[in-house]
């Protein structure tokens, strides 16, 4: 298992899996199979996959420790960058296909509508993380500072879940399940931190 996780093939397979939803949406769009309101389908699809991939990236450290598979670290950056990729698609779907780059309208949305504010914040917090994702930046910042910076992902994910909770008309259970997922991942971190202090 650990050997398998270290191969280039595994990395390629994980890449394909994370790119899959985008490829599938593009294919459906090309075949005109996104339903009666394709723009809404793309908005929802890219949004939900941003959250899913973000939670996957946050699950990697707990999974490494619990399963005893340190090799999983190889996929963390990739998952993080894919979350940023889906987030970027989601943002541009909104800016272009929903607002047609009407900046005054967009600004009004950002300041007036709290679910947009939360979504924008979630995205904005991902930008410095994506920008400093290279080995060069880890070196330049130093491991400790780099790690501190990348803890922003917790706030970004929380803002993303809140964005989802605040935008639904009904059926809070769906965004609620993402909140529960993020809660569990953060609880594990809290527990680890407490254990580390006691030790």
């Amino acid at each position: 298992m650990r050997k398998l996780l270290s191969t280039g093939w595994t990395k390629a397979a994980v890449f394909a899996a994370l790119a899959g939803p985008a490829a599938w949406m593009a294919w459906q769009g090309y075949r005109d199979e996104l339903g009666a309101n394709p723009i809404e389908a793309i908005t929802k699809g890219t949004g939900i996959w941003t959250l899913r991939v973000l939670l996957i990236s946050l699950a990697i450290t707990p999974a490494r420790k619990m399963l005893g598979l340190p090799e999983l670290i190889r996929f963390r950056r990739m998952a993080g960058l894919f979350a940023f990729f889906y987030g970027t698609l989601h943002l541009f779907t909104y800016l272009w296909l929903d607002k047609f780059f009407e900046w005054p309208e967009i600004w009004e949305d950002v300041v007036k509508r709290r679910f947009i504010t939360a979504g924008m914040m979630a995205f904005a917090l991902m930008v410095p993380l994506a920008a400093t994702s290279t080995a060069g930046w880890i070196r330049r910042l130093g491991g400790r500072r780099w790690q501190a910076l990348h803890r922003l992902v917790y706030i970004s994910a929380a803002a993303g879940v809140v964005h989802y909770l605040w935008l639904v008309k009904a059926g809070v259970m769906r965004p609620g399940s993402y909140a529960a997922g993020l809660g569990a991942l953060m609880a594990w971190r809290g527990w680890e931190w407490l254990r580390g202090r006691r030790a």
Partner: protein
Amino acid sequence: MTNRNIFSLPYSEVTPKRDYLSRRALLAAAGFSFAGLRAAAATKLTGYRKSPFSTSEKQTPYNAITSYNNYYEFGLDKDMPARNARNFKTSPWTIRIDGEVAKEKAIDFDALVKMAPLEERVYRLRCVEGWSMVVPWIGFPLSALIKAAEPTSKAKYVRFETYFNLKQMPEARYAGMPFPYVEALRMDEAMHPLTILSVGLYGETLPNQNGAPVRLVVPWKYGFKSAKSIVRIRFTEKQPASTWMIANGREYGFYANVNPEVDHPRWSQAKERRIGEFGKRDTLKFNGYGDQVASLYSGLDLRKNY
């Protein structure tokens, strides 16, 4: 058309529109008339007349109208009602008439469709979510039923209650809303000639996901006011609370008139996307029916009475 079987045929057994249209084209080419085909396309409605209230705008395709639905009892995603309502039982069907009326009664569906001549009403439909369609409904003015119900002088509001049965609608548990779904109109709104009870669209009986067998259509209000699959119509003296008012009264009021000047607290209502179009168009006040209905609200602060 009064044959009971015509209305009880499950949607799953109905010939897809695409198929029978191409079949018709074939037969037409071979010199057959359409009249003989009525039995094959069993849910066709006939004998309805055109209405001067219809818009001449391009009609939204049948496929879009029947695959993109908000009907939370059958699921939260737009494509779920079409799948989950397939076996919804709409026959037998009766509507209970009660409250402030001379005599409470139950109207059978067959009697209901004979209350007034059926008309085709091509109306714009504007959803509170910011999309719109143009739907060729078949129905009759609600006023015909109200007159037959003989409301008392105390009747100031009409309350509509939708069918609800968790066994047939297991997805309803995820909506987090109180069911059965309730909507209501002021008496003058309910009596307005634009307000109809619809039993069909595109010349056929209503598909289940669109609110079969009978639903309300109020074209100048956001779509959620147009309650589906109605089983009870109650006349009341006091303004009834609608399901959305109970679920989220800050965002959904009693009136829900389409109004580009009054935003939903979470999004602008100034524009809408017509299903099938790429760009957005400006939303019209009262959904473009202001000439007919604006006078109903003179003196009413539409910002407060959203």
